[in-house]
């Protein structure tokens, strides 16, 4: 089998904040009745977490599960674990109307790190989202527009934000995140 490659292996930037491509990440789009007990079982078996609430993201070890819409979750885990996670989901939801698809190679992921105010500022420059401390915090996920393309992000902690986008626009998104951190562009709105 060919060797899988992430969108921009090793891409990194250092400025007002740092940006790096996270490398291969396993991602599964999981759709179905999020309130069903079989769904809770599928998510627990695949990622070890509970089903996240509306606009929330939950983590357990190397896995995360994000709420994407009223009938859709994004299950993230190690790239190599995806077949195993898909099998667990398939077993738990056997007979129930659902969809579970490996989308790992359709996505790119970036991590923005830096001073707490700086990472909030990086997103605020690129997305029409209130990044104030009262409006957005770790534990939430936000799907939105970043520049000209769709993207989603969440805070791992106050100094770390992860951004996921389609692989086809990875270079564009990396460029946005880089340009938002160029020297001289600091605003300092978030401290």
């Amino acid at each position, binding site marked *: 089998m060919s060797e899988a490659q992430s969108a921009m292996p090793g891409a990194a930037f250092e400025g007002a904040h740092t940006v790096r491509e996270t490398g291969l990440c396993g991602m599964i789009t999981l759709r179905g009745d999020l309130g069903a007990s079989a769904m809770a079982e599928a998510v627990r078996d695949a990622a070890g977490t509970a089903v996240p609430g509306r606009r929330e993201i939950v983590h357990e070890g190397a896995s995360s599960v994000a709420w994407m819409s009223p009938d859709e979750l994004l299950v993230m885990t190690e790239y190599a674990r995806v077949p195993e996670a898909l099998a667990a989901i398939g077993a738990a939801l056997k007979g129930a109307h659902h969809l579970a698809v490996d989308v790992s190679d359709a996505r790119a992921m970036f991590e923005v790190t830096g001073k707490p105010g700086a990472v909030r500022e990086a997103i605020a420059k690129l997305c029409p989202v209130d990044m104030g401390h009262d409006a957005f915090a770790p534990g939430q996920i936000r799907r*939105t*527009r970043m520049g000209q393309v769709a993207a989603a992000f969440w805070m791992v902690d106050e100094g770390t934000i992860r951004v996921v986008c389609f692989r086809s626009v990875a270079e564009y998104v990396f460029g946005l995140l880089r340009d938002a951190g160029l020297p001289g562009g600091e605003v300092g709105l978030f401290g």
Partner: protein
Amino acid sequence: MLILECPCCGVKGEETEFAPGGEAHLKRFGPGSSEDDFHAYLFEKENPRGVHFERWRHANGCGKWFHAARDTLTLEVFGTYPAQTAEPPKDIRDKIAARRPGWRWREFS
């Protein structure tokens, strides 16, 4: 700036996060309908300066369709409500009546 609250995911987002889907509550006339009905369905759309009912999609968000009642002149949003609604809901119409006494939109007032 137009700010809509998506009733599906609860996000209060700015206009560019959404995609407009034209007039709301159209009754589709397809195969077997009269030419007049089909013509009206295709071309006779409301284009008011004021109260309007529209379909929107949270395109750069949860991806779902929903309805919005707003004023096209002031961009005031009277409310958003689920796509699975055949006509403007009573509570939205009451809200509009409070803000725009005497309003009319198609057969609703």
